[in-house]
């Protein structure tokens, strides 16, 4: 690589990382507790457990479940009914005052066999929800998400340009060299290069899947526009449905998607359904398909299936981006590696910041003593050799 191209990449690396570093530090720090949110919930006693009953204990109708939830939160309307992948004994009914807004959500966890209200999980407030907001939208809604998405793109650019700069720095060094002489600067540089290259693939995956996650709302809106609107053409001009039996709708969805399991149901009128349909989201039953969803749109009044088709590629990309960003799909060992990779990324960000500060200070000192102009572009050969 010639000196000019090198300087260009150095310039890209410097500015792409400088702009996003503060936000990336915030995301790394707030992301750390989120990796362990299940464990923290358990510690705080915020988990829901179903009492042990015979495995073949009969289940109550979903219409009963919804009625029980309704009685818990007068004035609220059901939005979603969902189920954990690994525990089908509990229904979670999420409710709000207005179906169009997620500003004031309530939730009831209801035993699928007895109808007992097991808990009212808090969807707002608390330490983890605070971290989650800082991590996803800076308490600024969609604009906040899109802003963090842009920062994530800059981080991806910083990572790619960093990889391009790695080779010239390392030409004369063995992998893993960390020089610890009198110049702490060399140590920062070597640690930056070492941990940067070690975390490369992980950081790139987490950055890009994070960017995709920031686009969740627009992606769902696109799916509505692209796939759902045409299905409700026959309903045009009709008033929104008064939802009929949920149990019949779910039964119809199971019949339309054999071999799949229920993930969640969106009530008519939410962003995930239509004004006239229950949208029953079915998932696959194998590890490779468990995150892939097939929405079955069921007429809310007649319980007739209007459509059942797999999600388009862009929603599938979102669904696969979620676990790859959260690190919650490989058990405790994966979470620990995830946390350590996150810490390593913090070190890369901080050492990068130190290097930039140190360089500015030295450049200023040089200018004072020699009257030389401050060069903004790094400086490779000299530092590579110490």
């Amino acid at each position, binding site marked *: 690589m010639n000196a000019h191209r090198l300087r260009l990449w150095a310039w890209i690396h410097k500015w792409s990382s400088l702009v996003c570093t503060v936000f990336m530090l915030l995301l790394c720090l707030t992301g750390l507790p989120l990796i362990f949110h299940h464990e923290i919930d358990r510690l705080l006693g915020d988990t829901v457990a179903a009492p042990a009953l015979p495995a073949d204990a009969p289940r109550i109708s979903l219409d009963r479940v919804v009625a029980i939830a309704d009685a818990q939160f007068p004035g609220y309307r059901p939005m979603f009914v969902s189920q954990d992948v690994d525990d089908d004994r509990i229904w979670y009914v999420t409710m709000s005052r207005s179906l169009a807004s997620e500003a004031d959500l309530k939730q009831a966890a209801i035993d699928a066999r007895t109808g007992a209200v097991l808990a009212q999980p808090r969807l707002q407030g608390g330490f983890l929800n605070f971290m989650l907001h800082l991590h996803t939208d800076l308490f600024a809604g969609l604009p906040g998400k899109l802003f963090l998405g842009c920062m994530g793109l800059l981080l991806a650019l910083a990572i790619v340009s960093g990889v391009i700069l*790695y*080779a010239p720095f*390392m*030409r*004369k*060094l*063995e*992998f*893993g*060299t*960390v*020089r*610890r*002489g009198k110049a702490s600067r*060399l140590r920062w540089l070597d*640690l930056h290069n*070492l*941990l940067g*290259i*070690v*975390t*490369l*693939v*992980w950081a790139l*995956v987490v950055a890009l899947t994070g960017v995709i996650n920031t686009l969740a709302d627009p992606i769902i809106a696109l799916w509505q526009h692209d796939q759902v609107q045409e299905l409700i053409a026959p309903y045009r001009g009709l008033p929104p449905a008064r939802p009929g039996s949920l149990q019949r709708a779910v039964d119809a969805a199971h019949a339309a998607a054999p071999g799949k399991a229920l993930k969640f149901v969106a009530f008519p009128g939410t962003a995930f359904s239509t004004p006239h349909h229950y949208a029953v989201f079915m998932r696959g039953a194998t*590890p*490779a398909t468990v995150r892939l969803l097939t929405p079955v749109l069921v007429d809310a009044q007649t319980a007739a299936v209007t459509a059942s088709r797999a999600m388009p590629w862009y929603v599938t990309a979102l669904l*696969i981006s979620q*676990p*790859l960003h959260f690190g919650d*799909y*490989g*058990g405790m*060992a*994966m979470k620990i*590696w995830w946390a*350590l*990779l996150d810490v*390593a990324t913090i*070190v890369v960000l901080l050492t990068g910041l130190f290097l930039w500060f140190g360089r500015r200070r030295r450049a200023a000192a040089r200018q004072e003593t020699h009257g030389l102009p401050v060069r903004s572009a790094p400086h490779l050969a000299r530092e590579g*050799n*110490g």
Partner: protein
Amino acid sequence: MTAAFRRTWGMPLLLGVLTAFGLLAALLGDGIWDHLSAVALGIPVVVGGWHSLRRPAETARSRNGPH
């Protein structure tokens, strides 16, 4: 693949492939695949931690150290 390329990129490529394998194995499989994923993801972490934290005395002995 020249010797120089291998020296610079051999280890980063190996760690990158291990990371990618680890990320995908647990996503697409369960049971044994989760364990393989844990091992594959752990190697880059351990390698990075080892080189970051080992004692300076050992660094001084490395062939290409600046001392």
